[in-house]
């Protein structure tokens, strides 16, 4: 694909602009993207966004490798590095390998040896028991090749787990 502006070089930067709910796409070569970014910066002050665009092709590759985000609260690891605060309990799972090193650096250990919550709340416990029962029933359905029943039970479990999360 050729650059939309100079029409000569290969387009490596793909820009989507939304102005008054009208979306337009632009495909630019690196040089024209840089010029465009200066214009846009003056127009919208989107300096941060467009600074990244200048070396777009290369950066995307890096980004794909390093951007790690929590599925539960959407915090990405870069933001955590800047702020020093995690977003929710699930971040600990999402960023596990990074945090294992960090915790070791802070505390000299990354293994908890203290207390655990006294007991799981009764309502929650019952729910977990129920889910386990249904899972068991589902396995049995699969064993006797009653796949329709198994699918029904699977959807039921998913529904309950979703509810649990929300």
């Amino acid at each position, binding site marked *: 694909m050729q650059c939309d502006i100079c029409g000569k070089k290969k387009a490596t930067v793909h820009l989507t602009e939304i102005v008054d709910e009208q979306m337009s796409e632009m495909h630019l070569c690196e040089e024209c993207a840089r010029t465009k970014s200066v214009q846009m910066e003056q127009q919208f002050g989107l300096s941060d966004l467009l600074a990244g665009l200048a070396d777009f092709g290369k950066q995307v590759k890096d980004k794909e490798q390093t951007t790690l985000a929590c599925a*539960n*609260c959407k*915090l990405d690891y870069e933001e955590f590095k800047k*702020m*020093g*605060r*995690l*977003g*929710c*309990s*699930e971040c*600990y*799972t999402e960023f596990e390998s990074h*945090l294992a090193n*960090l*915790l070791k650096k*802070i*505390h*000299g*250990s*990354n*293994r*908890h*040896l*203290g*207390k*655990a*919550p*006294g*007991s*799981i*709340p*009764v309502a*929650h416990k019952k729910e977990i028991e129920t889910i386990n029962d249904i899972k068991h029933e589902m396995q049995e359905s699969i064993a006797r090749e009653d796949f329709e029943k198994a699918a029904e039970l699977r959807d039921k479990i998913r529904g309950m787990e979703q509810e649990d*999360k929300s």
Partner: protein
Amino acid sequence: MRLDDLIYHTGEWLRGTGPHSNIVMSSRIRLARNLAQKPFPNRATKKGSISILETVEEAVSGIDYFKKSTTFKIHEMDNIDKQFLIERHLMSHEHSMNTEGKALIVSDEEILSVMVNEEDHMRIQVMQSGLNLNETWKIINSIDDALSKRLDFAYSPRWGYLTACPTNTGTAMRGSVMLHLPALVMTKQINKVLSAIAKLSFASRGFYGEGTQAQGNFYQISNQVSLGHSEEEILQNINGLLKQVIEQEIQARQALMVQNKPMLEDKIFRSLGVLKSAYIISSQETVELLSMVRMGIDLDVLKDLDRRVVNELFITIQPAHLQKIEGKKLSASARDTKRASLIREKLGGV
């Protein structure tokens, strides 16, 4: 309980009794707890924070320790009221900002308090007079057990209690002790002691909280590490360290009494004299003089003064307290006059 009811009482932790209360003002343990999967306060929406607060309020309502507690919603308070609660060591400065969904739950006698939606969903604090970390742990541990039956805490078997800041992860516990170390300061040994404390991974800071200079010769010492040791082990380590610091302060006091008794007595009585007769006094001067008077009580140089009265003055001479007592906003110079009159009243002055 209304906020104004607190003006005429001070916390149980100021009563000036308990083990080593001649040197140790108070012991405090704080636990951070979060609800599983819910965004931490820094990422929560207003609606989310309010819902956390409702969940916490419902959970505490069924627990005996909270029977006589009151919930203060921070966004409903004016600046003086917020400052008043900070001055009483019931909440942090951070808790007084971006107040939507934030609350403070305070028990009768101020032994127990919970900041809701500070950096973590819950910051539970128990305070006791004197060196009393073991007793304090017993209380806060059973409160935590009761809460964990009602709330689904963010916890992982590998990393323990999960907190917004990874420096608190694990036990999520901070044990701290407020020490009064005037003799180590006067004999110029304090820096040596503080640097030894820092080497052992404990933090020290002033009486009036994080980032404050040590005023009135008060130093607060707490654990830095929260992961890799059990709660009891961490508290034992603090206790072990404190015993040594206390021993050094006792020795320094004895040395001063033996080597330079007239100088020390002069300093103590002059301090009491100024406090009893001043008509205008700044908070900094007050705190320095009160420190000498407190040591005078500890060394039996001043016999008729109650340590509790002096302990309480460290709290009540602060700006928001003076304004609450007076019932109106006071300028800095008006506060200096009000402060002097409060001190004369409490110490039986001129």
